[in-house]
C-alpha cells in the first residue's frame, strides 16, 4: 500500500513555510505573553512545542487552550496563535518559580493560499530529504467552515489515518486544536475524530471556532 512507502510521488508532501525559535522568561503565577512577527503574507498554520529546559526534555506541545479549573499541580501551560502579522505565545507558569521558556514553532500554508515564501535555511538544510524518515503523504487538504454542527469528511481508507488540524477563532486568530473535552458533546466540544472511513470536525462553540484547516494523510 502507498502508506507503507517512505515517500510517494503519487501524493504531495507537506513542507514547512516558516520556523521560529527563541526563549523568554515566564513569570511565576501569571501569564507571560510574547508576540513575534512572522513575516509571511498570510496567516500561517502554526504548531510548536516548548520546554523549560534548553535540551527540550521534557517537552510538550503547544495548544490554544489551558486547563483553568485547577492549578494545584505545578506546571506550565502554553498556548499559541497566529494572525496575519504575528505569532503570539502565552505561557501560564504555575511551577512555583520564574522559568525560562524555550519554544520552537513551525508553520504550514493553508490550502487556499498561494503565496511565495522564502527558502527555509537551517542547520538541517543539507538534510531536506532523508531516506531514514517517512514523509507524510497528503490524501486531502482543505478547510471547512464550522458553526453549530459538525462536518464530516469521508476518506474511505479502511484504517484510521493521521490527521493534522488547526482552528480559526471568531476573532480571526489561528492555532492548533484546543484541548479536547471528551466524551464529545454536540455543539460544544472542539475536537477532531476519525474512524476507518471518515474524519469529523466537531463544532467548537465553547471556543468560538469558525473554521478548521486540515490535512488528511494516507499514513496511519
Amino acid at each position, binding site marked *: 500500500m502507498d502508506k507503507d512507502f517512505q515517500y510517494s510521488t503519487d501524493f504531495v508532501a*507537506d513542507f514547512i*513555510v516558516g520556523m521560529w525559535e527563541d526563549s523568554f522568561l515566564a513569570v511565576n503565577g501569571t501569564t507571560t505573553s510574547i508576540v513575534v512577527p512572522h513575516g509571511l503574507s498570510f496567516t500561517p498554520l502554526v504548531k510548536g512545542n516548548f520546554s523549560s529546559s534548553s535540551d527540550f526534555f*521534557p517537552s510538550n506541545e503547544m495548544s490554544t487552550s489551558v486547563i483553568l*479549573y485547577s492549578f*494545584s499541580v505545578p506546571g506550565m501551560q502554553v498556548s499559541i496563535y497566529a494572525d496575519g502579522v504575528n505569532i503570539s505565545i502565552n505561557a501560564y507558569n504555575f511551577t512555583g518559580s520564574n522559568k525560562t521558556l524555550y519554544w520552537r514553532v513551525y508553520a504550514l500554508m493553508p490550502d487556499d493560499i498561494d503565496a511565495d515564501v522564502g527558502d527555509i535555511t537551517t542547520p538541517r538544510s543539507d538534510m*531536506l530529504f532523508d531516506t531514514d524518515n517517512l514523509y507524510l503523504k497528503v490524501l486531502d487538504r482543505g478547510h471547512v467552515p464550522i458553526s453549530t454542527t459538525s462536518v464530516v469528511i469521508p476518506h474511505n481508507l479502511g484504517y*484510521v489515518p493521521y490527521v493534522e488540524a488547526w482552528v480559526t477563532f471568531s476573532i480571526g486568530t489561528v492555532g492548533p486544536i484546543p484541548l479536547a473535552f*471528551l466524551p464529545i458533546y454536540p455543539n460544544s466540544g472542539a475536537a477532531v475524530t476519525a474512524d*476507518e472511513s471518515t474524519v469529523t470536525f466537531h463544532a467548537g462553540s465553547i471556543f468560538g471556532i469558525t473554521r478548521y484547516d486540515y490535512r488528511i494523510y494516507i499514513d496511519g
Partner: protein
Amino acid sequence: MQGVYLVSLGTTIGFISMARTNRYLQNTDFILLASDDVGNITLNVPSGSTIPAGANKVFESFQDIGASAAAPLRCIFNFNNSSEYVITNRVLYSVSVNVGSFPTTGSIEISVERYSGNIIRLYALYQNSASSTVTITSNIDIQVKVRTFKTPFSS
C-alpha cells in the same frame, strides 16, 4: 569530485560529473515534515482508584519511541476500544466518580509528553479539589498511537 571520463581512441573528450552517493537521494527547497517513528502507548485508569481529599493522583506509563531528539509528536487517542479515534495531544476526559458517597462526574487530564531522550510519557492526572475522598467508578482504557517527527530545528 567523482566522475566518469569519456575516452575515445585514447583521447579524453569529456567528463561527466557525478555526485557522491549518500543517503540523501533528493532535496527540496523546503523542509518536509519528516516522521521518524510511530508506536503505541497504553494506560489503564482502574475503577476503584481513590484520591484523598485535596490531593492529586497521577497514572502514567512510558514508551521508548523514535530518535533521541527534541521533536514534535502527534497523538491519536482511543478510549475503551471505541471505533472512533480522537486527534489531539491533550484531553479533558469525563469520568464517573463518587465524591465521598455521592455519585457525580469528574474530569481527568490526559496528555502525552516527550519525557527524556526517546522516552515519551502518557499520563492521566486527577486533581481532587473536594474535601472528601474521590473514588473513580469507571474503568478507562487509554490507547494512544504516537507519531514522532524529526525536529526541523538544529537539534
